[in-house]
């Protein structure tokens, strides 16, 4: 250490860091137009410069891939020709390279439409455009059968013409709702703007204002940091996630009763006896990190249940005492208390988020 004291070393290190920081900011400013350009594709690549871990995992989640362009989607490439028959109509989804076509025929006539948008991971539905009108494809791809079947929710439709057989014609507001949930920046001034959308749920979708934050942060300004969603109450988190996953209110107003509502998790969770709008231990993000793929292993949730039902319960539950611990098992809580429920069409299975003591033979509640 001759000639250099420890403090000198520290000082040199600080100077080097400062130079590096200034250089980084300068580089960042020079690159900003390019980043902004790239944002049209995925803004998370820009966010990754600071939020590397989350930006690395989130785009791979089902939410991050909630909408994909045909060329980006492996499902159709793996199944280059899918067919399905219903009544007099035959549906075909054919893929050649990056192009997919959705067709329906009654034997005499055929309507073929290009697929531009794949909605959903796992099960997949196609958003179609015909003569200026938008349609939800009458059939969807279901991994459980590795093939096509009627789109969930359209089971009751009985098309009487080839035109009707294409799919459910969307009402004026619906395309905005579809893209509003499955894409980012698809809605500007409450109008659908397909030119500006980014496929899937990206940073900006949930963290409104992250684009401005990106610019400000490059200049060392952090006043425009988007609100920290972790600070929302459980009730507000449910309503936030429920904008797409459906809130309790939406399901009640729509009168969606029975197993069809099992896929609306915020509704099911709010019906749970243990739901408390101010207790962070029962919020969506207490169990799920939206930046990570959903965890499928039952035992991994035990700690979340035990946060309330363990011996050392949280003091906030002291008013009614700690909730009872399970007399049956000490692990895999969700395997009994959050059963798997099939949709009435039998094609998809969801975890029921109405946490409860399930009694044998009891009908599906609510």
């Amino acid at each position, binding site marked *: 250490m001759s000639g250099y004291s420890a403090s000198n070393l520290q000082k040199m290190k600080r100077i080097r860091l400062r130079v590096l920081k200034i250089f980084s900011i300068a580089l960042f400013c020079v690159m900003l137009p390019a980043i902004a350009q790239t944002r049209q594709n995925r803004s998370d690549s820009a966010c990754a410069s600071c939020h590397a871990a989350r930006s690395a995992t989130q785009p791979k989640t089902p939410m991050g891939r909630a909408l994909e362009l045909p060329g980006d989607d492996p499902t159709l490439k793996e199944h280059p020709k899918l067919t399905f028959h219903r009544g007099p109509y035959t549906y075909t989804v054919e893929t050649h390279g990056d192009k997919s076509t959705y067709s329906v025929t009654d034997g005499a006539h055929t309507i073929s439409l290009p697929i531009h948008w794949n*909605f*959903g991971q796992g099960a997949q*539905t196609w958003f179609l455009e015909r003569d200026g009108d938008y349609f*939800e494809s009458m059939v969807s791809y279901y991994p459980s059968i590795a093939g096509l079947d009627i*789109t*969930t*929710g359209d*089971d*009751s439709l009985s098309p009487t013409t080839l035109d009707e057989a294409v799919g*459910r014609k969307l*009402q*004026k*507001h619906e395309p905005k709702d*579809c893209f509003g949930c499955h894409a980012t920046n698809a809605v500007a001034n*409450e109008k659908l703007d397909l030119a500006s959308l980014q496929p899937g749920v990206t940073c900006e979708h949930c963290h409104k204002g992250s684009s401005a934050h990106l610019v400000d942060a490059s200049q060392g300004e952090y006043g425009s940091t988007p609100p920290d969603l972790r600070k929302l*109450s459980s*009730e*507000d988190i449910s*309503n936030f996630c429920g*904008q797409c996953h459906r809130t*309790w*209110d939406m399901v*009640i*107003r*729509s*009168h*969606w*009763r*029975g197993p*069809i*509502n099992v*896929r*609306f998790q915020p509704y099911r969770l*709010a*019906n749970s*006896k243990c*739901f*408390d*709008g*101010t*207790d962070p231990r029962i919020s969506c993000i207490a169990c799920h990190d939206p930046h990570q793929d959903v965890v499928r292993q039952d035992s991994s949730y035990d700690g979340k249940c035990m946060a309330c039902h363990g011996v050392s319960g949280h003091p906030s539950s002291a008013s009614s005492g700690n909730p009872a611990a399970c007399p049956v098992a000490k692990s895999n809580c969700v395997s009994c208390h959050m059963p798997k429920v099939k949709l*009435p069409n039998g094609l998809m299975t969801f975890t029921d988020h109405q946490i409860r003591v399930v009694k044998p033979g009891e009908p599906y509640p*609510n």
Partner: protein
Amino acid sequence: MGKLHHLPSAFLIFGLFYTALLPAILVNVVFPPTASAQEPSGFDELVSQASAAREQNNLPQAIDLYKQAVALNPKWPDGWWFLGSLQYATDAYAPARDALTHYIEINPNAGPAIALRGLCEFETGEYVQSLQDIQRGLALGAANRPRNAGILQYHEALLLTRNGKFGDALQEYGLLSKTSASNPDLFEGVGLAGLRTALLPKEVEASRHELFVMAGDAAFHFMAGDEKAAQQKFQDLFQRFPTAANTHYLYGYLLFPKDPDQAVTEFKRELEIAPSNAAASLMLAWNSLIRNNPSEALVYAQKVVAEEPAFPGAQLVLGRSLVETGDAQAGLAHLGKALQLEPQNLEAHIALAKAYSELGRKQDARRERLLCLELTKNETNQVASP
């Protein structure tokens, strides 16, 4: 509106009956009697004479004979039924009402008789009882045929309008628009509900009939699904009556479920014409809430409550706006007022559940949620879009 307007108009509106056939149809087809009770011997001859007179459309004689018969045997239900329905057919509404009351005392759940008594009460001006009876009759199956349903829904809608339940009335007219032929009398009823005027057609000043008929015509076509024709008719209405209250509100109200942006434009136009129009402000407040803009909703909601504090919707929208702008405690008070005014209001219970949840009142929130589930348990929709 004279005699022809009252009973027959209801029927003629829907093109259902010919006046000459009306009594026989009414008695034998529309509201068939229940099985007879055991009659004492001696009055069989009277019954057969009454029946013959009725079949020959000799209504005065039939009425007289049925009166004698029920005097002899007051527990004979069919006698009261025939007497009441024939009196109704001859515009003797008060006696008809009383005869039907005797019949209903014997058969308390006879939906058609209760509904027919409601129609009598409509004609005698007993509007509160009339609405009660028509609704109870409908609940007990009086709308057993499309034509009966049309007659009863039309009268129910008129009475709901008179009670200021304009939205409920429009809902009834919406059902009628799918099954009924267009008619100026029907249009006027729709127009009164649509322009939020708590009057019966006969109470409208002659100079205003045109306004209500034009408004109703446009609304009827919209509800029947002919939106293109409706758009033109609304434009004609706006041109003919540029300052009439609630015309733009009505168009916006109908557009709202399908085209909320255009609806908002119409509500704002309404406020330009009538700045104190609480209904238009209320819809703008709702729209802001739906679009997740509770701060904007709060401004409209405060305006609505200042103008119409006794309007449940006003208290509800202010309560919700307060809860959603972070003042759940203040919101509770207004939601409570909304429920005092309308205890079964689902939206108020939904908002209360949310407010309690925000405040950490877990048990209260759960109670409200269970109540909402109970209130909606019979309205199951098995289709849920993705």
